[in-house]
């Protein structure tokens, strides 16, 4: 997995053609999942008013958003293959996300 980070002195295109093909397949899979989840997100507000309560809608949309953001973070931004200490730099803004969750919890149970 790490090999593509350090291409060899091979003058020809693609030092690791097979690996890059598997990367392409992975990227397209993530893209399709993101597109599908976006479709679900747009659909949620229409259905919830009839079937679900407001809290369920809020919870569902938050889970969908964080799953999507996590997929972009791990796969498109390559954090899955990055050293742990680099990943921790990227994790720091999650603190602000926790603040948002506290606001929503307090609002829900006021």
């Amino acid at each position, binding site marked *: 997995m790490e090999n593509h980070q350090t291409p060899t002195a091979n003058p020809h295109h693609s030092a690791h053609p097979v690996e890059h093909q598997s990367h392409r397949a992975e990227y397209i899979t993530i893209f399709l999942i993101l597109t599908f989840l*976006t479709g679900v997100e*747009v659909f*949620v507000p229409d259905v919830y008013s009839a079937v679900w309560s407001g809290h369920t809608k809020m919870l569902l949309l938050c889970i969908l*958003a964080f799953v999507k953001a996590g997929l*972009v973070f791990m796969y498109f931004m390559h954090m899955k293959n990055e050293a742990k200490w*680099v990943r921790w730099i990227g994790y720091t803004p999650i603190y602000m996300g926790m603040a948002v969750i506290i*606001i929503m919890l307090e609002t829900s149970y006021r």
Partner: protein
Amino acid sequence: MSSTLQTAADGHGETLEPEDVNFGKATGGKVAMWMFIAQDGMSFGGLLFAYGVLRSSAQEWPIPAEVLGIGLTAVATFLLICSSLSMVFAVLAAQERNQAALVRWLGVTIAGGATFLGIQAYEYYHLVHNGVGFITSSHNGESINNLFGTTFYAVTGFHGLHVLSGVIYLTIIFRGAQKGKYTQGGTSYSPVELVGLFWHFVDLVWILVFTFIYLL
């Protein structure tokens, strides 16, 4: 570690790097970009936090979907996801030293970002026309919480500026790619990877903004 430093200090010929388990695990450019992204994420977090506090403490707040409309923004969201895909393909092309593919995928990414900005400009024009201003807000002739417009423009405007700077940044890299700067092998693809990190971050933030500002 101390033995290595001692060897260097003894002055027996070559200077040695101190042993650092993290050395070489990520380039300086990548660490710098990630630190920038982390602090930029904090800025967005601060804006969303302020929005959350203002909205949850408001007497009345309109349902965003009714005022803003979701359809066009969903298309814009899809566009950003598409441009993220073309961006990772551009990085692969640079690593494969395929200049033609690199220039093509960067071009697609820039087009996606520029179209997103166009959609946002169109959306702003219509919202202002329909009464949602930065200072005062109304919907269908009835006034709504003024902070609705303020928070909307503050958050989406800050994000739009990121898309704009991303498009400019991408255009600079696009020019370099045309000259073959990033397809020389070795780590020459690195600037493409860095602009990619920034671009994916802009996409990631929009995913959250779309949920908190438009859908919830």
